[in-house]
């Protein structure tokens, strides 16, 4: 197990290196000058900026310098958030996104597993049909709608009370996180609901369930001990990358709820062609993703001993 994990970590580092290299090349291949701004500047000023960020050097040299700095865990200064280190940006804003993301994933997983199991138990009956319609509605309108509606709901709640009961936007306490994380988790919840349903239905006719029934186990026990546990694998598979995605990419939710998360930096960096932030966030996301995938693979073995990875 230890050897396996170490091997995985090593291959993970290689993966991250590939990600960094590909992104580095793509970034430089995209047209547009990261140092250009709305107001035109003189060539002299541009040159000085290029020197400051090391963009006056040939690209292979820039790559070597980047790799060297990356190995020391230093991604340099942001181009747009001038005077801020990319490391500081990640350090300041990732915890926010992560807190929000973890709560969102908790909502999504709890809701998804519950609704999924419910729809499987009531297959083709009313609860199943209602939940399916909700899921379809949920994935057929842009996430922005739910963010806006969620926020308006908060405003209405506060108006009903005549005082601020829940914060409409902002950051700072658990109360600030409730609605944004609920909205953020909706998409994943919908996916997990459907996945759980379909995988429960596959399990429900397995021989071991029949055996369990035959030997007289209570239906609750069958449900928890056999069905749920056997059906949860796809949920776990999806959760790994989803955690990485949700904890870094809640751009819309961050915008609407004025949350100082990392998501906006991800989106803005590419649009602004902020080289250092693109590299920093991509490498960070890549590493995080790889880590989550390793964890999922290890969890596989615990959930379902039949899964052998080696």
């Amino acid at each position, binding site marked *: 197990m230890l050897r396996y994990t170490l091997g995985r970590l090593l291959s993970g580092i290689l993966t991250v290196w590939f990600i960094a290299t590909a992104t580095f090349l793509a970034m430089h291949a995209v047209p547009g000058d*990261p140092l250009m701004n709305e*107001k035109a500047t003189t060539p002299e000023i541009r040159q000085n900026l290029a020197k400051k960020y090391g963009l006056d050097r040939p690209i292979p040299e820039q790559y070597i310098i980047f790799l060297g700095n990356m190995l020391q865990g230093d991604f340099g200064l942001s181009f747009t958030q001038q005077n801020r280190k990319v490391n500081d940006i990640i350090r300041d804003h990732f915890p926010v996104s992560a807190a929000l993301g973890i709560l969102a994933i908790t909502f999504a997983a709890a809701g998804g597993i519950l609704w999924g199991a419910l729809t499987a138990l009531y297959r083709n009956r009313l609860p199943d049909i209602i939940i399916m319609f909700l899921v379809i509605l949920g994935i057929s309108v842009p996430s922005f709608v739910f963010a806006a509606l969620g926020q308006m709901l908060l405003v209405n709640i506060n108006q009903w*009370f005549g005082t601020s009961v829940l914060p409409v936007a902002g950051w700072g306490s658990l109360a600030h996180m409730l609605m944004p994380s609920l909205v953020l988790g909706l998409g994943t919840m919908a996916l997990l609901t459907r996945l759980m349903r379909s995988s429960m239905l596959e399990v429900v006719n397995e021989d071991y369930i029949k055996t369990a029934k035959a030997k007289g186990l209570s239906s609750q026990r069958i449900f928890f001990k056999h069905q749920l546990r056997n059906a949860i694998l796809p949920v776990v598979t999806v959760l790994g990358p989803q955690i990485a995605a949700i904890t870094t990419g809640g751009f819309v939710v961050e915008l609407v709820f004025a949350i100082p998360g990392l998501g906006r930096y991800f989106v803005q960096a590419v649009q602004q062609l902020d080289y250092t932030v693109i590299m920093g966030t991509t490498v960070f996301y890549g590493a995080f993703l790889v880590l989550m995938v390793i964890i999922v693979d290890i969890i596989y073995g615990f959930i379902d001993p039949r899964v052998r990875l080696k």
Partner: protein
Amino acid sequence: MIQASHWYGLNMPQRLLLLLCMLFAWSEGMAQSVDAASGTVKIAIAQEPPQLNSMKATDQVSIFVLGHVMEGLTRYDRRGNLAPGVAERWELGDTTAKFWLRKDAKWSNGDPVTAHDFVFAWRSVVDPNTASEYAFILYPVKNAEAINQGNMPVTALGIEAIDDHTLTVTLERPTGYFIKLTAFVTTFPVQEKFYQARTEQYAADAKDMLYNGAFTLDSWVHSASMEMRKNPLYWDAEAIKLNAIDADYITADTRARLNLFIDDKIAYTQLDGETYKDALNNQFRIKKFVTGSVYFLEYNYRDNRITRNKNLRAAIQAAFDPEEFVNKVLQTPGNLPGRSLFPTWIQGVEKTFREEYPPPEVKPDLTRARALLTSAKQELGLEEIPPLILLVSDSPTATKQAEYMQGMLKTRLGLDLKIDVQTFKQRLAKMTSGEFDIVGAGWGPDFDDIMTFGDLFASWNLNNRGRYVNPEYDRLVRVAMNSSDPKTRMDAMSGLQSILIEDAVMLPMYEQGVIYLQHPKLKGMRRTVIGSDPDFTYARIAP
């Protein structure tokens, strides 16, 4: 926290829910958007300022914050007139300016603000190593341009500290509006000692700055909040009524900000075409304000571009109805139909420039437009005008306006437009390299003089993206630049206004107006075209 009286006003389920919510320990949010007792006003800002280094700041949010926490030689008073700032008084000669600094102006660390702080800041601004995008603001100062281009040492800049409290400036040429420049962010002082101790880190955080304005930046949580507090060391602290300006929310989403306003969490928010109806439904008193920016289309005059053809441009001009555009496409009140490059607020000799020198009138006239197009086709030797490429940014408003132009030109003139939507940097790259026929542009004033718009189409201006070259235009700009006589200057500007419209050099679309909401108890918040907008410096809260 919840007041007892409020508690008793609630019914049982409300009480239970309230208790539940209190479990989350959310109490500071109970504060209202304005609080007369503590003199606090809460606001939201659209985005995180990229930096707060006054020498390099260019964006609206940075200028907004800096305008409250720092002060230049001059400032604007509550009525919007130029007033003494760090300088108690001044004298403007033909090519010299002398400032007497007040002795009680202090930095937030207690040091006095001296003439040397200005010398250091101004030299740094024009120093090419600083790479300040706004260095051109100081170009009226002697040798500034040459220094900025790396041809002279920074010490050659025409600024000198006679002593701690006297500053003389030598100008490159007579500049009537020079004093107005000294109220602008780029010219604010910076203490050399403090700056050298920080260098790269300067103004990256609240503690990495020195303040000499009416407020200080008390805390800056990146992307989350910026809190300003009244500066007790400010020389005119008595005139400042607010104790705190808390920007507790940073979001560019107007609907989110409207929701915060409805919830009484912020005291001011701007509306747009999409949210104003929701504001109306809430029975708020809506206000309007002209921002001072003009929006227009620029044509490409590089070789082999068909937009070089005057009749083609004139045909587009005659087909376009700015009033229809403002009323049907922009849909919010406050916008003015575009008639000129110069906005209505620009000062002329005595009244506004536009009152004294009305631009040549262009009536939307479809018959004339079609005739012009026919002659354009003849001149170009083309059966059909090939599709024109309209380059726009990826903002919802820009795309919407481009779609209107596309449909309008198609139905009225049979002209095809291809809309090239590009993200920020890609659009700039294409603008610079000239890969467009028409490009959407907007221009906001950098300083309070007609020249901030006037030289936009001068052949040497780097912001003249279409490379329009007209010796007569250049001559008129030079005339206005080298004169301090208002009449001569305005006559020249009127001449180039006529060129712009009669030759259809650019197509004015609209002069931007905005509508906004303001808490009824918040008084004295000043909207301003130049500098820190909105200005809360002299705001107060009615009890």
